[in-house]
């Protein structure tokens, strides 16, 4: 699904890593261990606080691996996916949907996932006004739907998929213009919830639970907005690696990350900065559900 092997070779040499590829046993393509490991981090919008630095983690990894480690926070996963495709970034902290794209386009592999609130998955919620009289998903028909953006797993893909299955709708287009009377794309989970709070929309699909974020600005948000229901489980953010990375090296990386689980200090860092409780192993299969959902929407995403 990606560019020819010569272009990959280019990137290898550009990283000055011929020695690594010689010793590394290779199956598919030449593998390497970079001089400097680059990690890319796209904070999932689904988390309630996000930090703009990855420095503490990078330092620690560098100590453990004995090579330089660099972390960059990016704000757009297209950029991260492409950077991993070009092997400019070797390790990506990507939300589920971004991972699916990276895997499809460039064979990027998931090795780990985050555990938050004790779970490797999370759910999206349907938020409505307490006094709206909406009690079931079926009541949503003819209402106005607010979501953050179409590329959001929890804000759009999963709820849309759920509603389409439940009400036997063929396409996203039908869902948006026939089931709902109107939709609005708000750019953020908090904006979606505010739209419902203010009465501009009737239902918002957001991560769980967006209301806690708004409590400071809208003190009565907990009473005014209630949760109508939840979607299926969505896999958490991944830690993924490019396929050029040496297998043994990847294994070592994995072990280091997993060892953080027993390290009070590191867990605290992960918690403070990224809201992760723990790190767990992950396989590509766990993301099949996201892949299926994406496949469903890819071509009929409403323009």
């Amino acid at each position: 699904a990606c560019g020819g092997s010569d272009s990959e070779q280019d990137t290898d040499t550009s990283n000055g890593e011929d020695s690594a590829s010689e010793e590394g046993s290779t199956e598919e393509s030449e593998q390497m261990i970079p001089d400097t490991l680059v990690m890319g981090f796209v904070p999932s919008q689904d988390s309630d606080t996000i930090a703009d630095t990855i420095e503490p983690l990078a330092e620690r990894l560098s100590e453990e691996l004995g090579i330089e480690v660099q972390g960059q926070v990016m704000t757009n996963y297209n950029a991260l996916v492409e950077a991993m495709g070009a092997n400019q970034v070797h390790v990506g902290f990507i939300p589920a949907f971004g991972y699916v794209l990276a895997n499809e386009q460039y064979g990027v592999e998931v090795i780990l996932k985050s555990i938050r609130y004790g779970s490797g998955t999370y759910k999206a919620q349907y938020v409505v006004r307490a006094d709206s009289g909406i009690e079931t998903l079926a009541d949503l028909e003819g209402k106005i739907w607010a979501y953050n953006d179409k590329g959001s797993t929890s804000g759009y893909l999963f709820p849309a998929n759920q509603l389409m299955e439940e009400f036997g709708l063929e396409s996203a287009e039908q869902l948006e213009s026939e089931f709902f009377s109107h939709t609005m794309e708000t750019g953020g989970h908090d904006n979606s919830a505010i739209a419902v709070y203010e009465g501009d929309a009737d239902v918002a699909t957001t991560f769980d639970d967006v209301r806690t974020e708004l409590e400071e600005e809208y003190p009565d948000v907990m009473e005014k907005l209630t949760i109508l229901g939840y979607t299926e489980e969505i896999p958490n953010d991944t830690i993924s690696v490019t396929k050029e990375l040496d297998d043994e090296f990847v294994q070592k990386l994995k072990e280091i990350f997993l060892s953080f689980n027993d390290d009070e200090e590191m867990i605290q860092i992960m918690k403070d900065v990224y809201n992760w409780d723990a790190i767990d192993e992950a396989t590509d299969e766990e993301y099949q559900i996201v892949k299926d959902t994406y496949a469903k929407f890819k071509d009929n995403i409403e323009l």
Partner: protein
Amino acid sequence: MTKGKSVLSQASSETNKIPSLYPAKTKLQVTVIFFTVLIIYIFSMYWTQREMVGGVGGALGNMYTVIKKFFPPNFAILPNILDPLLQTIQMAIIATTIAAIITIPLALLSARNVTTFKPLYYFSRTFLNLLRTIPDLVLAVIFVGLFGIGVFPGILALIIFSLGILAKLISETIEAVDMNPMEAMRASGGNTLQVIWYALVPQVLPQYTSLVLYVFEINIRASVVLGLVGAGGIGLILNQQLGFYNYPNAMAIIIIIFVVVILIEYISNKIREALV
């Protein structure tokens, strides 16, 4: 005249002097400025590249791999993007019109040759500078925070953003006009408003028009940023298509934006020709 004589005598005392091309002071100043800029530049380049891992060896190959994915553009989506495109144009029209109107008093106030009352001039200059410092994204976010999501905050953000550019450029145009006709109008007893209307407006009108159209073009492109905060328009669609990895669709949208911009430029040239 005495001055001429002294010059003559001075000249004869320096008869065989061969001058250097620049006086020493100028040379020194220029050299200092040049090297300061060069050093900051070298430092900036070094500093920004310090985190760079690979060389730039494979850069073109990598870029080619990505660019290839954008082709061929998929124009089949054309009918679907018409509505958001029109919405973007509408937002740009409203924002540009309102900004163009508010600009007039602002630009007059911040033109040195019209506003002779210094404190007022400095005040409006500073105000404009502040307006211009705020990034468009921040404007959009703040207005979304204030007005909720929708077209309205988007338009407001565009207005403020355009105002910053427009008022600065137009006040500079005003400062460059021929002041003689204004003096003539004043000499024939016109009051300030009449002087501005009769002597200033006809002189600034062509540049005003072309700057307004230039800002219109900027506003159409700025809608990409607005899409990020839910303000709608073609930018939203472009971001979606990129997000879903439909690069050929995205390319088609980019080309459409390009065509619209070229059209605006064409129309703006026609209008300018008609006015000049």
